[in-house]
């Protein structure tokens, strides 16, 4: 009667919503960890915002300003809902993950209540430079110490080492990624937060690589900070968010000064608005926030379990295929990985491989992936990274594997 074996998740149905694949029909886009493509729902939302309700937010005494403010604050509510924050006020809009981490380093990091000279910030070796350099800059300013957290040979956090670092009474903050952009390892954030909180150490989670792939519930994870970018989750560039738990948020000083973030300004003294406005100086990226909310709503409308099963199945196909190709070394053997794989082909350079893949319409990333401490700890100078998203298909993976085999023969 009916074929009940229909796939639960049809990537081609969603792929059709991404105009870029109509303009580049032969494109095999496997650089999703750098940025994802944008569905019509996101492009339409930004365009409609500009066409129907563009105005500045929070101040105007006219109907468009009210509509714009509603759209912007509605976007904040969508972000809060998407990650299950307790309140919309715990969401600060930023330009992206990098700015979100810099915001936290410049507010939490500058707060005498939170950090004193000699305190320690634990930073995992997996981290993207965006989750290393702001802490190094803070260490220079405030005399706090950076404690690198080791990895296991599989590329997971070394929990024994973490316990050792947390044993220090000066450990105040742990900065850790939910999923590694370079080798894909997913960390057990809930367990890590539990360990850290037992020692009164706060946890900042870099969710840039998790937000599009994993369910994120900041209250279940019990993290203190969670940051991510819109553009890696089908949303626009130039917008991201910092979740900051309200009890911490209340204590934070401002970082950038300007309009929007003040209560009263006079030359004898200025008082600041309450969060989140205190931390959002100037006109915010309004249309981008609307676009981000459209992306998160669009993701929420999918069967995300089925989406995850699809991405995991493609990722298995990818890694199984790679193991059949002589000369390929896969980096990162974590038990749980997001749908990306880093690989190298010594002595063949990843850049050369990527050039030949590009000749065949296949887009990948090569290099150190802004994670030099990790790449050096693997004893290599760089990798080629293939990263999957929900619109990738089994055919994409097969084309990648076939092209990679041919390329390695050409370069042998």
């Amino acid at each position: 009667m009916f074929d009940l074996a229909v796939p639960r998740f049809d990537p081609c149905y969603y792929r059709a919503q991404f105009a870029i694949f109509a303009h580049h029909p032969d494109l095999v886009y496997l650089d999703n960890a750098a940025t994802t493509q944008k569905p019509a729902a996101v492009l339409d939302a930004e365009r409609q915002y500009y066409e129907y309700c563009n105005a500045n937010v929070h101040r105007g005494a006219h109907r468009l300003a009210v509509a714009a403010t509603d759209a912007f604050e509605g976007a904040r509510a969508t972000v809060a809902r998407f990650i299950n924050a307790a309140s919309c006020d715990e969401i600060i809009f930023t330009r992206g993950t990098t700015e979100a981490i810099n915001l936290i380093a410049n507010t939490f990091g500058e707060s005498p209540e939170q950090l004193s000279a000699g305190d320690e910030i634990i930073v995992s070796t997996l981290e993207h430079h965006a989750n290393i350099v702001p802490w190094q800059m803070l260490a220079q300013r405030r005399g706090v110490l950076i404690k690198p957290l080791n990895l296991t040979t599989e590329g997971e956090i070394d929990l024994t080492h973490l316990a050792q670092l947390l044993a220090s009474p000066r450990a105040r903050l742990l900065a850790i990624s939910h999923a590694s952009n370079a080798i894909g390892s997913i960390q057990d954030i809930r367990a890590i937060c539990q360990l850290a909180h037992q020692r009164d150490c706060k946890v900042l989670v870099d969710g840039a690589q998790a937000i599009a792939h994993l369910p994120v519930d900041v209250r279940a994870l019990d993290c203190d900070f969670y940051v991510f970018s819109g553009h890696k989750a089908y949303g626009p560039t130039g917008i991201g968010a910092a979740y900051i738990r309200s009890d911490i948020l209340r204590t934070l000083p401002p970082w950038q000064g300007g309009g929007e973030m003040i209560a009263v300004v006079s030359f004898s003294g200025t008082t600041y608005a309450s969060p989140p406005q205190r931390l959002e100086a100037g006109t915010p990226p309004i249309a981008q926030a609307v676009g981000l909310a459209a992306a998160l709503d669009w993701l929420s409308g999918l069967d995300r379990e089925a989406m995850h099963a699809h991405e995991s199945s493609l990722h298995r196909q990818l890694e199984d295929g790679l193991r059949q190709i002589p000369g390929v070394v896969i980096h990162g053997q974590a038990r749980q990985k997001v749908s990306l794989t880093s690989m190298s082909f010594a002595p063949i350079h990843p850049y050369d491989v990527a050039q030949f893949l590009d000749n065949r319409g296949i887009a990948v990333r090569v290099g150190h992936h802004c994670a030099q401490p990790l790449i050096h700890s693997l004893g290599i100078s760089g990798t080629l990274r293939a990263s999957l998203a929900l619109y990738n298909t089994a055919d994409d993976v097969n084309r990648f594997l076939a092209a990679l085999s041919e390329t390695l023969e050409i370069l042998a």
Partner: protein
Amino acid sequence: MNAISASSSTSLEPAASEHADPRFAHPFGNPGHANAIDLAELARQLDAAASWEAKNRLLVQLAKQLPDWSPEQKTPDRKVAGCESQVWLAFSPIKQAENNVSWQLAADSDSRIVKGLLALVLTAYNQRSDSGQFDFEAWLNERGMQRFLSASRGNGLRAITRTISEHWQNQPQPNRA
């Protein structure tokens, strides 16, 4: 294409073709080499390579004619910053006439494609004494190779040509030193 002064009989430097250091004994822009390759020949080969794949294959072939450096020769001071792959450059003076020194160039990279691009660079700049005579980027554009000049850090071609120009500007002329 290269403006080369007639060799001086008083030169104390080895002729480029018989350079004692094997890194410098390559055919690119080296008219004394048995299989010398000049820009006209490279232009002919690149123009004949119609597709990107053909161009990339050609670069890999050219790379094979550029001698590999030993690990000891790949010193940090010879490394060009700003490339995703590793690139090393070396200069050896060739005394052409009493007041005229040109430079024999050698280069290596861990990327075959970048090493092929280095072969193009060497052909353009080898045995020259200054950087103002030849527009290498325009030459690459004429060959349809402009993608290699993009701002991407991938191959760092601009970083390489800048290093050569800076060397010319900063190094004292050895015959005047």
